[in-house]
């Protein structure tokens, strides 16, 4: 099965307090996001304790993440959630793993839920190798603050992977965010998301980046960044060494 290219990344976050649970549960709403086949995925999750409205937003976050992943190579693509089919969704120990067949692409998703938030990251690789992501809660949820802080936190994360680099994030009005080192654009896809009091990011390191990861591990050990298990903040758990959750 095709795993598509691995030169992109996509993520999304939903702050559940900013959604309307009653409206989300009405067919008029969710039928604009979910196909009948996707609705049946919820039936397969019976007993998992997932509310229907959370399921709808989980699926939305997967589709939005896929849209971001794909639109990097297809500028001008319009977000059409019904045309992004989620073909499977399984409960894992600390996340939901999904599979998406989008045209010739097969993508994989990991979604982390808590009482307050839903965060998804997608990858062309099922093991999410070289994919890093993170989430932070912020005090002021206005748009300009969200936009500024998600860049700040993403740069903090990137600086651990690329110590010494003069990192900047540049985003054109219609394009995805780009990571630059000084005057050089890095081939490191980055995705940013914010909703309500949450901001999140994902990026993918080049496949030959073992030295980056080694540097990251060394720096992480001595980092002055306060790393807090997300369980303490939002009820989420860390799922791997690539994710970071801080407050």
């Amino acid at each position, binding site marked *: 099965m095709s795993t598509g290219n691995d030169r992109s990344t996509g993520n999304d976050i*939903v702050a559940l307090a*900013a*959604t*309307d649970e009653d*409206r989300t549960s009405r067919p*008029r*709403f969710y039928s*604009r*996001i979910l196909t009948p086949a996707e609705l049946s995925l919820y039936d397969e999750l019976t007993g998992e304790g997932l509310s229907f409205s959370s399921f709808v*937003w989980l699926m*939305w976050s997967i589709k*939005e993440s896929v849209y971001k992943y794909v639109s990097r190579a297809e500028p001008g693509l*319009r*977000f*059409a959630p*019904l*045309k992004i089919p989620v073909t499977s969704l399984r409960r894992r120990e600390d996340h939901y793993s999904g599979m998406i067949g989008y045209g010739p692409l097969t993508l994989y998703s990991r979604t982390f839920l808590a009482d307050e938030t839903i965060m998804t990251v997608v990858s062309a690789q099922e093991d999410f190798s070289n994919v890093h992501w993170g989430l932070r809660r912020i005090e002021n949820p*206005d*748009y300009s603050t969200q936009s500024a802080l998600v860049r700040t936190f993403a740069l903090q994360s990137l600086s651990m992977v690329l110590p010494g680099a003069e990192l900047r994030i540049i985003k054109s*009005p*219609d394009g995805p965010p780009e990571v630059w080192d000084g005057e050089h654009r890095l081939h490191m896809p980055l995705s940013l998301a914010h*909703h309500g009091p949450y901001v999140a990011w994902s990026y993918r390191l080049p496949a030959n980046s073992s030295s980056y990861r080694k540097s990251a591990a060394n720096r992480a050990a001595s980092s002055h960044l306060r790393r807090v298990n997300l369980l303490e903040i939002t009820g989420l758990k860390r799922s791997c060494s690539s994710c970071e959750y801080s407050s």
Partner: protein
Amino acid sequence: MERRAILDELKKVLYPYTEEKEQLQNIDENTALVKDLKINSANLVDIIIDAEAKYNIEIDFDSAEKIISVGDCINAIAEKIPE
């Protein structure tokens, strides 16, 4: 219904979903919902449903997918309102 009248009514639909209240009063058909009005994409379905309720119409999925700008919204509404 003239497009100008739809645009004026549309401002009321968009109002709860944008922080850019001042800019909302000066929108035109080229104004982008997400990029210019900073509306979160998670609210786009809300806006479609609110517009449907306001005009007692049903915006089909194809039309909804094309909505990026205020002009797209007006197109989707205008084609469903009886002459």
